[in-house]
């Protein structure tokens, strides 16, 4: 098996095969399982009904994030603030009871370690290179930024992992996205991944696991790599990953759940073998010219609807295939945009900085750097910053970022998924526009009728200051 040159994905896959079946599927061992309140209740219930235990409780970590309001969680007397939405409250209460009942570590809503699952996993050192990581959420691909094979699963699979610590899977094909050279100043990892999705399309990675390769990714910080891998699913890929290196190891060293002492050394030695071999074959290969990457924004209702900020709203006629022309027209109607309009003429009423794509400390620093000494434009009605975790929030406060945000007219919130999805109180009103650092611009994603423009944190800050979609490079 080891004689043939293998891709990073194939190496991680091979290391997790418990057994292979006649039909070509494999029973794959799952090293790390993240659980939140939305996709887990029926899985726990099924275990209860069948009288089944969780096979390896220490390999699962539970944290609430999707439903949690981002307003203060404790009142003046230090008591937890009750959650108004009854169904949200019930889902949150179920996790709080289920996790300890099955021996699973649970991070409560009021703990400083609480946050979005995909921020918490890497931050705690729970997510590690070379591991298989799953969660009932499609943006689990995020953890691939550490060199892990990470992907989203459904509720029945959550149950399967809890009971057996495995999944029955069909192997995906390895795909390479290569970016060499340099991306320009003021251009972020988010701009790059939006550009990539715009190039390969929302289904361009279907059936594949993407490995991001080349100098641009090798120079990235772990935070930036997490942003890139996070959105692999928006290109249709099951997962996305970047080979771990010294930058990864430095990020993980000393994290609470990372290996320690001699085990750390052994782990690093193993992690150093996790790279694609010379001569390994990718089923599909895409090369992006770094010089082509500009600050990116979306104009439509699919993450592939990307243009450079200096560009214009496309016309449905610009698209070769009929299905895309129809989709583009629908998108334009929903978004209230006319073909040919300059993207910088699109005015914005809401700004959201947050989500598992862009809520880590570097994201907040990038936005704060633009906002420092500035204020949001008057037409920007609602601007919020939602740190990805309590630890990110504390670090930002220590650096004084919270004051920069509040002085700029932003609300400084408690960690959670917030306005990334219309499931908790943070919603964008119908017909209004939002410059958002999240990952999905689907119809109704940020609330019924809400119009989302996906951007980087610095671009979101620039939109807040100018009241329009704007090129952040003019503000630095």
């Amino acid at each position, binding site marked *: 098996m080891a004689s043939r040159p293998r891709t990073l994905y194939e190496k991680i896959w091979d290391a997790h095969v*418990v*057994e292979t079946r006649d039909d070509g599927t494999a*029973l794959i*061992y799952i*090293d*790390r399982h993240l659980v939140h309140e939305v996709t887990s*209740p*029926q899985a726990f*219930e*099924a275990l209860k*009904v*069948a009288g*089944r235990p969780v*096979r*390896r409780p*220490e*390999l*699962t*970590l539970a944290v609430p994030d999707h439903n949690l309001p981002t307003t203060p969680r404790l009142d003046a007397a230090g008591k937890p603030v009750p959650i108004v939405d009854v*169904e949200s409250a*019930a*889902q949150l209460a*179920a996790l709080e009871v289920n996790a300890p009942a099955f021996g*699973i*570590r649970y991070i409560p809503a009021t703990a400083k370690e609480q946050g979005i699952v995909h921020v918490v996993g890497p931050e*705690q*050192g*729970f997510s*590690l290179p070379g*591991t298989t990581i799953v969660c009932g959420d499609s943006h689990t691909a995020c953890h691939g930024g550490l060199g892990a094979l990470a992907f989203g699963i459904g*509720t*029945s699979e959550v*149950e*399967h992992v809890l*009971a*057996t*610590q*495995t999944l*029955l899977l069909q192997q995906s094909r390895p795909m390479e996205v290569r970016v060499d050279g340099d991306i320009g100043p003021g251009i972020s990892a988010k701009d790059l991944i939006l550009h990539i999705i715009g190039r390969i399309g929302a289904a361009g990675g279907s059936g594949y696991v993407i490995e991001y390769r080349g100098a641009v990714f090798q120079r990235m910080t772990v935070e930036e790599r997490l942003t890139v891998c996070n959105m692999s699913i928006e290109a249709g890929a099951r997962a996305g990953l970047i080979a771990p290196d010294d930058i990864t190891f430095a990020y993980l060293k000393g994290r*609470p*759940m*990372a*290996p*320690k002492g001699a*085990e*750390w050394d*052994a*782990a690093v030695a*193993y992690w150093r073998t996790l790279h694609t071999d010379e001569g390994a074959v990718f089923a599909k290969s895409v090369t992006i010219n770094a010089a082509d990457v500009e600050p990116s924004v979306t104009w439509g209702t699919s993450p592939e609807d990307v243009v450079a900020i200096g560009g214009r709203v496309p016309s449905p006629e610009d698209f070769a295939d009929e299905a895309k022309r129809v989709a583009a027209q629908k998108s334009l109607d929903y978004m209230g945009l006319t073909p040919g309009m300059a993207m910088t003429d699109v005015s914005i009423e809401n700004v959201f900085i947050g989500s598992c794509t862009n809520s880590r400390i570097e994201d907040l620093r990038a936005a704060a750097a633009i906002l420092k000494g500035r204020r949001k434009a008057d037409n920007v009605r609602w601007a919020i910053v939602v740190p990805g975790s309590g630890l990110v929030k504390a670090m930002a406060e220590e650096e004084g970022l919270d004051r920069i945000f509040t002085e700029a007219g932003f609300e400084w919130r408690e960690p959670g998924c917030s306005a990334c999805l219309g499931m908790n109180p943070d919603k964008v009103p119908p017909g209004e526009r939002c410059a958002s650092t999240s990952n999905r611009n689907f119809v109704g994603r940020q609330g019924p009728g809400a119009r989302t423009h996906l951007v980087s944190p610095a671009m979101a800050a620039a939109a807040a200051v100018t009241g329009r979609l704007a090129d952040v490079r003019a503000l630095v």
Partner: protein
Amino acid sequence: MQPLTRVEGRAIPLGLKNVDTDIIIPAKWLKTISREGLGAGAFEVLRAEPGNVFDDPAYKGAPILIAGDNYGCGSSREHAAWAMLDLGIRVVIAPSFSDIHSGNAVKNGILPVVLPQDAVDRLLEVAREGQTITVDLESQTVTTPYQDRFTFEIDPFRKHCLLNGLDEVGLTMARGEAIGSFEASRTAAQPWLMRGTEAA
């Protein structure tokens, strides 16, 4: 999952075609935290009609449902199977089923029986008389007190799972030894991989 070998009882003579999963359980029931209790929302739209078969005392608690073509089409929600099970339905007889739904049904211990339209029509008649219908999985037959006897096809793997009450989780659990030895070799070679939250 409850094993299913033989189901004997009255049948709900629905007969309707294209019963989609939105009819079986409407979307508003999906924010629940339980698989149980969904029977309350099952077939809600149909049950709003006076004189519907579901609320007819003659079919109360009947374990068999007889429907028309393309049963369970539409959204992939597993809640549809949970809702049926909560109503006490263990067998659905129809001329055809949606693939996803029949998979979900089997996963939850419900047997989808595919029979030709004329056989389904005959069973609807028998059901409306309030007579008992017997479905035997081992012999793959549906019989009535009038000596009707229809045989049906079923994938052998599904049959095996239903007869023994094996769901996918149960099947993988049966491979516990293989999983255990995989874990043991990892614990020996790379102990940090197996520590998870206990490393903190």
